[in-house]
């Protein structure tokens, strides 16, 4: 009788532990395979892979890799794939120190980064994994900026720019304060945008909300009437309704940012390839090989689901060949 509270506590603890043990289960275990039983499908050879893959880098490419991981884990649920979003530069830092297997990048690797990888003995293969358009976005209540020229964008974003109001951008624009947001300096998107629009990679005014977290940019632009920001097309499509994409005029007329215009090259200069850099040393693990193969072979499906622009057939073949060549070198 005197042990009542103790017994109760013990029973409660047992219940909690049992619940924790029975719940959870495998992430990504498919509930949809029409009652085919518990065993996951495995790959073509029926083999169930396991292991751990670490990816980090661009926040623009991150969601694509994550979507690819989800796709891959339907067949190989024993493989843990973690995708970080430290920014393209940050991702390369880790990659060239050997900390990650894959580096997501929204721009090609720089010479300094290649040198660092060489120094640390990290050999890699560059793969163009998907396409993207860098979209310029404004607030929903912004009904005046339907199309901006690359020249106007340059004047807004160049270092030392004094433009603080939309009326200074073009005659006829209303008197609304300009509130800028964009990726931080570690971001490949930042490098790419400054390179294409301002003319020099890394050259940008500094008085804007800079964040590697694209959701902060979404918040900043959608929360301010005079908001203007830029990030990958996938974020625009994901946040349709919260903000609006602006057509860009590079001299040949206004072009809206869409999958089609990116693929056919008319959305210039902001259509761009996205990359995954894979450490050759990681190819010794079967799951890494298979994962990247999935990213390339199932490219269309993954890209459409994740709101990216798929590789063209040509690009896909090239990626496939580059990958197989690299794997061949390691000798799977």
């Amino acid at each position: 009788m005197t042990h009542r509270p103790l017994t109760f506590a013990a029973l409660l603890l047992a219940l909690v532990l049992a619940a924790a043990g029975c719940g959870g289960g495998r992430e990504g275990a498919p509930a949809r395979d029409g009652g085919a039983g518990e065993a996951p499908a495995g790959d073509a050879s029926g083999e169930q892979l396991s292991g751990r893959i670490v990816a980090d880098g661009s926040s623009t490419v991150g969601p694509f890799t994550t979507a690819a991981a989800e796709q891959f884990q339907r067949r190989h649920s024993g493989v843990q794939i973690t995708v970080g979003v430290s920014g393209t530069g940050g991702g390369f830092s880790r990659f060239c120190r050997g900390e990650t297997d894959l580096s997501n990048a929204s721009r090609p690797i720089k010479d300094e980064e290649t040198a660092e990888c060489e120094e640390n003995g990290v050999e890699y293969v560059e793969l163009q994994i998907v396409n993207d358009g860098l979209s310029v976005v404004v607030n929903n209540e912004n009904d005046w900026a339907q199309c901006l020229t690359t020249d106007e964008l340059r004047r807004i974003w160049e270092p030392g720019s004094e433009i603080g109001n939309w009326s200074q951008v073009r005659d006829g624009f209303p008197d609304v304060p300009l509130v800028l947001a964009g990726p931080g300096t570690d971001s490949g998107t930042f490098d790419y945008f400054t390179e294409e629009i301002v003319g020099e990679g890394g050259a940008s005014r500094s008085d804007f909300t800079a964040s590697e977290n694209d959701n902060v940019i979404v918040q900043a632009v959608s929360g301010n009437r005079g908001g203007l920001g830029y990030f990958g097309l996938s974020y625009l499509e994901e946040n349709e309704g919260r903000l609006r994409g602006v057509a860009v005029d590079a001299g040949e007329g206004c072009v809206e940012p869409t999958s089609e215009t990116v693929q056919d090259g008319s959305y210039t200069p902001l259509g761009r390839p996205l990359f995954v850099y894979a450490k050759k040393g990681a190819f010794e693990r079967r799951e890494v090989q298979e994962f990247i193969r999935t990213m390339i072979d199932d490219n269309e499906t993954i890209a459409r689901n994740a709101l990216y622009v798929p590789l063209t057939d040509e690009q896909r073949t090239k990626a496939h060949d580059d990958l197989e060549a690299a794997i061949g070198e390691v000798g799977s």
Partner: protein
Amino acid sequence: MRATGRRWSEDVVKGVLALFALVSVATTVAIVVALLLPAVDFFSQVSLREFFTTTDWAPLFSPARFGVLPLVAGTLLITVVACLVAIPFGLGAAIYLSEYARPRTRRILKPALEVLAGIPTVVYGYFALTFVTPQLQALGVPVGIFNALAAALVMGIMIIPTIASLSEDAMTAVPQALRDGAYGLGSNKLQVSLRIVVPAAVSGIIASFVLGISRAVGETMIVLLAAGGMPNLTFNPLEQVQTMTAFIAAVGAGDAPHGTVAYNTIFAVGLTLFVMTFAMNLVSIRLVRKYREIYE
């Protein structure tokens, strides 16, 4: 009968407890050293004058600028506004709880106040961003989505329990005899509260204020989420600002390569923050000692 010699077990206990106390001192020293070394490296490349007197903070851009004043202004702005909220409400709540409230009311109200202290700061941050800011906008206040006002208001709310709790403890510790004496001389309750009890407890009250201010200065999550990420030298709470703590969190979470000047800004700003709160604590100790009343 046992000989009453030296009980070594007592010495062991004393030693162990002293060790525990020393751990906190040692940690403080370790933190100072960990901050100092990279900060010294930083200041060998960036002059103290540039750091403390120029007004442009853009360490990650090129050309990099290292004027810390916008961050300091952001911290001070938010701290001041937060204290303008927390001190009146906190002190008022404390006076009510200590002097006016019936025991039953006190039993309910005091824990309720403690609940405010238990809310995670990240929840406060999102509360500021997703509730307070839209409400301010609905009231017609010209704020953007990131602004110092919402963050400071919410931070003030977060600090109220700290100030209320400590002030109330200080006031309850004032001997009843003082109050009775005042009543005997014909004072009403308000006069007793404000003219007798508060001055008698002022040492503890000041300590509570300083603790509240320290919390405001050092708070990171609320400002990171709601105040903005753009350094801005202003004292207008309607604008967005970046505080020292938010900057450290943002750069720390990003990936500036170790050992670079950009990375070492974390330590330089951290050291500045540490010195500020340390100085505040020293002032507080001085004030507390000066005004302390010892009864009996």
